[in-house]
């Protein structure tokens, strides 16, 4: 590892000196971009459990790619985005990543959609020294310790998606201050990293706000009939049901719980934050609150532009995943612009791009964007509530501390 890092540094120094020697100033580096293509690959869950999120990410990314290419590209170079479906499957995700990396042309990867798959894909990208930007993974140990339980930082892994470690506690804090709930039951999918991480965060947080967790009801993702699972939770008569799960499951649980007479509050995680889930839950989901990385009507300068363009292109409102996908492309484009890419030495270019990503400082629909030292995102948390017909309303916003 250490020698590897040293080799990179030496390589970098050589490359930089080579650039410096060949041509002075930024103008020439711009010229070297002219007519070139910056190739990016995205591994998204377009089908399977994550299929409610991946397509949104893809739309957001494509929107940004088109916008940049239509306005002169990156110093004259075009962006090309190769999107592959991993079917929400960890093994398939790793396989797709391997294929993309082995093509040898890509400068950076985006994704994968699910934290569960990131565990397989991110270490792969790290070992091949190709920058990877996570756009929707919110679990624990995504950055910087992608090789968890090993703790040495993964230097090529970044994420622009708000972690559940921030979002869930913020959500609980806001609700506790407002409604003072006494009891809760946690419903958690136990065969998926994203869901079980969320469950752990809920368990570790509720005590601080005087909420007693009466029970934790675990279930596998493939559960068909949620009636027994929901009955077990509802019969404890909790003030709050916490749901940490993904795909269509939160909606199913809400519908079943309302049918069984539950009148309390639903709180949850990132799994709530897409229009598909809000639409599926409909009336049953009305008022369900979650911490989100983005809110439709936020007043950040580049958000209005994003929302307008998204509506024009796709005819509907974007969601958080679209905003994060869109921001990711802006981040990579900005880094590529400043990275002095050679377009001949791919491994060298990847490392230059990685270095430039560390100093990104741009406006995105998520707000002003910079990576933390750990390559993570630091941003406003929007506590939002489902509105009962596919959308969300704002409950409150909490600025980063």
């Amino acid at each position, binding site marked *: 590892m250490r020698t590897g890092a040293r080799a990179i540094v030496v390589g970098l120094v050589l490359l930089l000196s080579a650039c410096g020697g060949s041509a002075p100033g930024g103008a020439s580096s711009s010229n070297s971009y002219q007519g070139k293509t910056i190739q990016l690959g995205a591994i998204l869950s377009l089908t399977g459990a994550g*299929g*409610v999120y991946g*397509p949104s990410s893809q739309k957001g990314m494509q929107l940004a790619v088109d916008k940049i290419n239509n306005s002169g590209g990156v110093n004259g170079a075009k962006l090309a985005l190769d999107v592959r479906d991993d079917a929400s499957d960890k093994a398939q995700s790793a396989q797709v990543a391997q294929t993309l990396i082995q093509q040898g042309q890509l400068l950076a990867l985006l994704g994968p959609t699910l934290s569960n798959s990131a565990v397989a894909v991110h270490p792969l990208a790290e070992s091949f020294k190709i920058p990877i930007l996570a756009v929707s993974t919110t679990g624990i140990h995504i950055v910087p310790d992608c090789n968890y339980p090993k703790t040495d930082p993964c230097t090529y892994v970044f994420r622009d998606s708000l972690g559940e470690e921030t979002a869930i506690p913020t959500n609980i804090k806001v609700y506790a201050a407002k409604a003072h709930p006494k009891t809760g039951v946690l419903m958690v999918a136990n065969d998926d990293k994203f869901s079980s991480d969320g469950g752990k965060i809920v368990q570790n947080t509720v005590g601080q706000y005087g909420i007693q967790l009466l029970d934790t009801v*675990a279930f596998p993702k493939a559960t068909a009939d949620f009636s*027994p*699972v929901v*009955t077990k939770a509802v019969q404890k008569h909790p003030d709050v049901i916490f749901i940490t799960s993904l*795909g269509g499951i939160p909606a199913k649980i809400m519908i079943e719980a309302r049918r*069984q007479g539950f009148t309390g509050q639903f709180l949850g995680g990132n799994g709530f934050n897409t229009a598909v889930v809000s639409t599926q839950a409909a009336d049953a989901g009305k008022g369900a609150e979650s911490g989100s990385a983005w809110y439709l009507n936020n007043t950040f300068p580049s958000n209005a532009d994003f929302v307008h363009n998204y509506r024009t292109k796709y005819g509907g409102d974007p969601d958080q995943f679209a905003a994060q996908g869109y921001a990711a492309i802006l981040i990579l484009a900005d880094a590529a612009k400043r990275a002095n890419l050679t377009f001949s030495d791919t491994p060298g270019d990847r490392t230059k791009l990685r270095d430039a990503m560390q100093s990104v400082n741009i406006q995105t629909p998520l707000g002003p964007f910079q990576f933390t030292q750990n390559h993570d995102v630091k941003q406003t948390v929007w506590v939002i509530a489902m509105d009962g017909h596919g959308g969300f309303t704002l409950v409150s916003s909490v600025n980063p501390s």
Partner: protein
Amino acid sequence: MAQQLLNAIFIGSIYALFAVGYTLVFGVLDVLNLAHSAVFMLGAVITYSLVALHGVPFLPAAVIAVLVCGLLGLLIEFVALRPLRRRNAPPISALISTIGLALIFVAIVEQATPSSFFHWLWQDGANSVRFPSNAVPNPTFHVLGLTIEGTKLLILITTVVLMLVLGYVIRFTQLGRALRAVAENRRAATLLGIQVDRIFASTLFLSSALGGLAGLLFGLAISDISPYIGRDQVELKGLAVIVLGGMGSIPGAVLGGYLLGMIEVLAFVRFGSNIEAGVAFAALFLVLVLRPQGLFGARLRERL
């Protein structure tokens, strides 16, 4: 607890309905039709497509889907079973050919393009849909603190009525007598003038129509319609149910279905989801150790 028992009865009904079709084919033809789970899935997705995307009211859509599934049963017979039977292939060959057909059925749904009949798969990427709430009313009753959903009640009633009808047909009609004769001894039945091939075709039609019905009721009550519900939710469980009930026995399949539903739910309540399936299958194993022929399994001549 009472609510959980109710939950068990509802899910048990679906297992029973699925397993009856499964066991019927085994009883008469002596082969396991592993395409049954794919037909189950098609029952749900065809009904959904008709209702949600083509504006057909639920009841006619359900009838069409059940008939289509019945016809698919004939397809299974003519494509996967009869040619092998003609060549005296061993039963394992039929098993493999029905697996092949199942994969093809699932793939056809999966490969749907945005303008095709099953295009809802690409509607929002969710890959799992449910009937629009206005298409199928689902009144919820609250009785003595218990929650009873209309759709689940419908499943229970449908299952019980169908089992009674099926029992009557097999016991007292000409077709039923022929079925039992073929199950007992194919050659003797032929010698008695029964057209065995026609009986096989009828059996597949009946079995697949039941499978499709089970699928659409599953989609209705469980709100989970996707290309994978057959494979993920009922294939193995259905197999367990018919082994538990006694291969080829219809009352066995019904009882086995309810028993598996009950064991699963109780195991979940008592031990949690992590070992629910383990407990359920351990219980099944125990039953089979004590009664290797299954609950209603008997010597060959008493089948059906």
